């Protein structure tokens, strides 16, 4: 048996974008690959239905976000609770503040990080985030405000910042 040609095409075409999403969700290339593989495997089994009725890309992104905050991988959960080692960026030279933010993100609990990624990378509303993660809208706000507060403490954000109060 060979996989559905259109599933294979979808996976091949979207793999890079999904890896990027997995990378900002997890902060780690290995975890990104792992999340992408697992989510695509789960997409594959519901492919006929999702292709017909839903948006496969949206489906797989929801699966990735939920997997990331689940106990799916207990591995290295310790490393998520503390400041990570430096992750150097290869091509460009982001500002110190961006480097600092990226490191600070790795110090956030998984759900807080997921909420911030869905807000600021995926540009979802809090209502959408609540649906994606399967949590209450109030919980989304609370994760976001705790997460932002933590980032602010770590990197010393400006007073002028008006967000999340």
């Amino acid at each position: 048996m060979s996989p559905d040609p259109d599933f294979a095409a979808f996976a091949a075409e979207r793999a890079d974008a999904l890896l990027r999403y997995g990378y900002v969700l997890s902060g780690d290339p290995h975890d990104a690959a792992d999340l992408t593989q697992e989510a695509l495997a789960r997409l594959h089994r519901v492919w006929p239905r999702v292709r017909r009725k839903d948006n496969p890309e949206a489906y797989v992104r929801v699966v990735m976000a939920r997997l990331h905050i689940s106990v799916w991988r207990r591995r290295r959960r310790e490393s998520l609770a503390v400041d990570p080692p430096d992750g150097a960026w290869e091509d460009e030279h982001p500002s110190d503040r961006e480097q600092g933010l990226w490191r600070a993100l790795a110090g956030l609990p998984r759900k807080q990080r997921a909420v911030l990624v869905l807000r600021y990378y995926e540009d979802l509303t809090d209502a959408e985030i609540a649906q994606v993660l399967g949590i209450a809208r109030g919980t989304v706000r609370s994760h976001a405000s705790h997460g932002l507060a933590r980032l602010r403490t770590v990197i010393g954000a400006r007073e002028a910042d008006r967000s999340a109060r």
Partner: protein
Amino acid sequence: MSQEHDPRPASGQPATTLEDDLRATLRRAAENAPHALPGLLAGVGRRSRRRARTRLLASAAAVAVVVTGTVLAVRHERPEPVVINPSLPAITQEQVVGSPPVEEVWPGAVQVVPASLKTGKRLRPLLIADAQTTLLTTWSSHERASAVYAYDQRTRETRQVTVVPSRKGEIADGFVIVGDRLLWHVKTDTSATLWRAPLAGGPAERLPGILPHVPWATDLVGDRLVYSAGDTGVFSVPVTGGDPTPVPGGEGLHLLEWPWAGDPLLPSDGVQGVRFGRLVNLETGEVSHAARTPGDAYVVCGVTTCSGLHADGTPYVRARDGSGERRVPELAHGLAADRFMAAHVTGRAEAEQYVIDVATGRSGSLELNVTLEGGETSYTTIGPTVDDRDMLSAHRTGDDTLVFIDLRRIVSGP
């Protein structure tokens, strides 16, 4: 109170709010994400509906054929067979699919335990205490242990061992058994304290001293707890509490399994970086560098083996020195106890996960028995990696049990 979030960037606001910076940071980070290599997606689209138990026998026969095929008779004056470097036979998904349950493949090393208390409270796997006893925890919130329970295979009873005190923002972790006691640490963002409780049951007791670190990995060495903490290095502290002392030669290293610690934990050179490419024996000072093949990606090494993906998309496992390479059904993100990986197989009607011993080629089904008909199903699979030195565990959602696999028992043989 928080305002409802509007994702549209507010125009006219200063361009340097935390939120704007966060957007920019995430965009830029995404540019440095790994790229999909051929092979990364291999296996994703494969299907299998069969559960042919006879497959295992077929694969054993295949192994025999391959092995005899590598024995070549070379004619000398005194003819004798010469064995040509027998590259180990590939482990294919076809061989793995339909494997018997793990408890049949590794009897004596597997314990199956109820996954909830009579009250209905979920239990999470903690560790294997002995051949009949497993330890479990309840959670007060996500990944926050609230109490420890012991399940006895003989009496089939679950009893409470202790209540785990922790405040909001603290996480109890690193549970190990020291003699007749359970030892663990409770960590905040910057420090940790040691706690213990009698395995026979009793209140938790905080031990003297504060660890000025956040332990990541821990191991028990005699009467000391060894741990590594971020990039600061490897430390040890008496299991009775007290002040930690640095382990000489462990600066900047991450503990894998005593006496081995190494780096990098998270390679800075992206997917081409080798996780734990360098290991240092903290007792002898011996240094081990993993063999590297140009173009390889996602390489994760343990004490004796590595797993990774070749540039042509072939997922493999092999010894740290590059010998004994073996093709495996999918990319492993590190091997548990240096020889176990998992393969996840989804079909139209069901999904299943298998544990594979890459040293012997044997595999067992976790019996997750996930039925896929009827739309969305939520289930949990396991992700073995090099940090798993002792055991693997999985939740059998259907019959609400936890399966514990004692890797040390399998490795040490019958």
